[in-house]
């Protein structure tokens, strides 16, 4: 071997994280809409409207420079796209098989005696752990004992990351899990009236809020959300910590908001309220539970997440 051939022969291979980051950047670029020709056209129209070329160009530049950090999102599709793009920028948490995600939330507690739903005037902390495979969830019982249960929709990083990762593909996988769950469900508990779309939205929200998903999968789920019938955009939604965000929203029996940070589109929390009156039978001898429109049923905010080795650790 010659000197040149030997020089720095032992250069270490590319690190897996660096490779994943570079690949994610490439995938983000692939997913970028091709806005340039359209923008030029729109600018062209603006130019025509503004009168002279030079003045209008000046105006265009000023508008771009003055753009606030909080960008205006005009449609739920655009929200999906922007959130997806932002997902690639966040490579902070890498899901590792066998690990658990510790999640600390602030929640409005159950209303108790005051009625069904939650009490918006109160807050409590809630801690849970979810397995990276998506199949298990754990939390502490009042006596301090850790309860580990099966999780819904029971799907995790491994299945969702199978190539190729597309919005249609990940949504189909979640839909299959939801359909399986619906088939097994006990009839007579009220929830069988929920539509498949409603449950699909709820399942995707659940994944977004309780799983450490890789950027590619998060991006695909964000792009998939607007394709679920009934999903819309909702602005200025406040989470349990008072943070105001922008939300994917679905209205069925109840309206649920998946609240995201309006700047970086990170998950903030959830809000849900009953939109139409429902009676849920509680079995012979017990009065039915009546849910009245406007009753809040969930309000949360996620305040901390961490990857840990086993449930119970933080």
């Amino acid at each position, binding site marked *: 071997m010659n000197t040149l*051939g030997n020089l720095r022969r032992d250069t270490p291979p*590319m690190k897996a994280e660096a490779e994943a980051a570079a690949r994610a950047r490439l995938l983000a670029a692939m997913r970028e809409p091709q806005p340039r020709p359209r923008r030029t056209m729109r600018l062209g129209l603006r130019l025509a409207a503004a009168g002279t070329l030079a003045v209008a160009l000046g105006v265009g530049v000023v508008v771009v420079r003055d753009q606030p950090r909080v960008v205006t999102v005009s449609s739920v599709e655009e929200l999906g796209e922007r959130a997806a793009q932002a997902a690639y920028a966040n490579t902070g948490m890498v899901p590792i098989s066998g690990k658990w995600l510790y999640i600390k939330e602030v929640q409005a507690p159950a209303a108790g005696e005051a009625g069904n739903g939650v009490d918006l005037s109160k807050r409590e902390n809630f801690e849970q752990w979810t397995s990276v495979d998506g199949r298990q969830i754990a939390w502490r019982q009042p006596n301090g004992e850790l309860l580990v249960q099966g999780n819904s929709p029971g799907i995790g990083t491994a299945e969702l990351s199978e190539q190729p990762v597309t919005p249609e593909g990940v949504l189909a996988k979640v839909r299959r899990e939801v359909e399986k769950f619906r088939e097994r469900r006990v009839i007579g508990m009220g929830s069988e009236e929920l539509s498949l779309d409603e449950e699909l939205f709820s399942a995707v929200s659940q994944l977004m809020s309780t799983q450490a998903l890789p950027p590619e999968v998060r991006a695909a789920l964000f792009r998939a959300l607007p394709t679920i019938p009934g999903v819309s955009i909702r602005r200025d939604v406040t989470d349990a910590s008072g943070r105001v965000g922008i939300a994917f929203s679905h209205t069925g029996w109840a309206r649920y908001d998946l609240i995201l940070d309006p700047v970086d589109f990170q998950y903030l929390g959830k809000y849900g309220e009953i939109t139409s009156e429902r009676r849920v039978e509680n079995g012979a001898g017990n009065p039915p539970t009546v849910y009245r429109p406007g009753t809040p049923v969930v309000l949360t905010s996620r305040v901390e997440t961490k990857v840990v080795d086993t449930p119970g650790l933080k």
Partner: protein
Amino acid sequence: MIIETAELDDAELIRRSVGDPEQFATLFDRYARQIHRYAARRIGEQAADDVVGETFLAAFRRRGSYDLSVPLARPWLYGIATTFVARHRRREERLLRALSRTGVDPLPEAMDHTVVSRVAASDKERELAAALASLSRGDRDVLLLVAWGDLSYEEVSQALGIPLGTVRSRLHRARKKSRVVLGDEEELA
């Protein structure tokens, strides 16, 4: 539908990626690591991370102008990577001069929590490093694409978009200059 991409040549993948961008990811999977190795050997791991990212983004954006009659995209990608490596030219030369001066190669960089065992460079290596540092950018690119990128002369010509004759003359000059310090018996590439 899952499209089987394993047997497709690079040109076909690039052709398909014009309408179906995600096909391009297969090129990344095929070449990212070897391009990283080539870049890391010249400018260090961390700078190479950036070079790989930039190379594939640039390649993706320029894919419409790829010559589809060339089945292998490897020279094209090495060419793009080489232009990004050139942005780190001063760093590359500084590292080579440090090796030449101290006899200790600053590469690979010591990353967090890792210990890099460093063997003192031989006199020949120190002289070679000095020679590489003194080459013009164009000459060094040709020499290292051949020696470290394993590109043929024809491929270097494609990669850098220069005539084959220029590849030969640059290589001749680079070898001659290096041979002066290494002695005539040393085969460089």
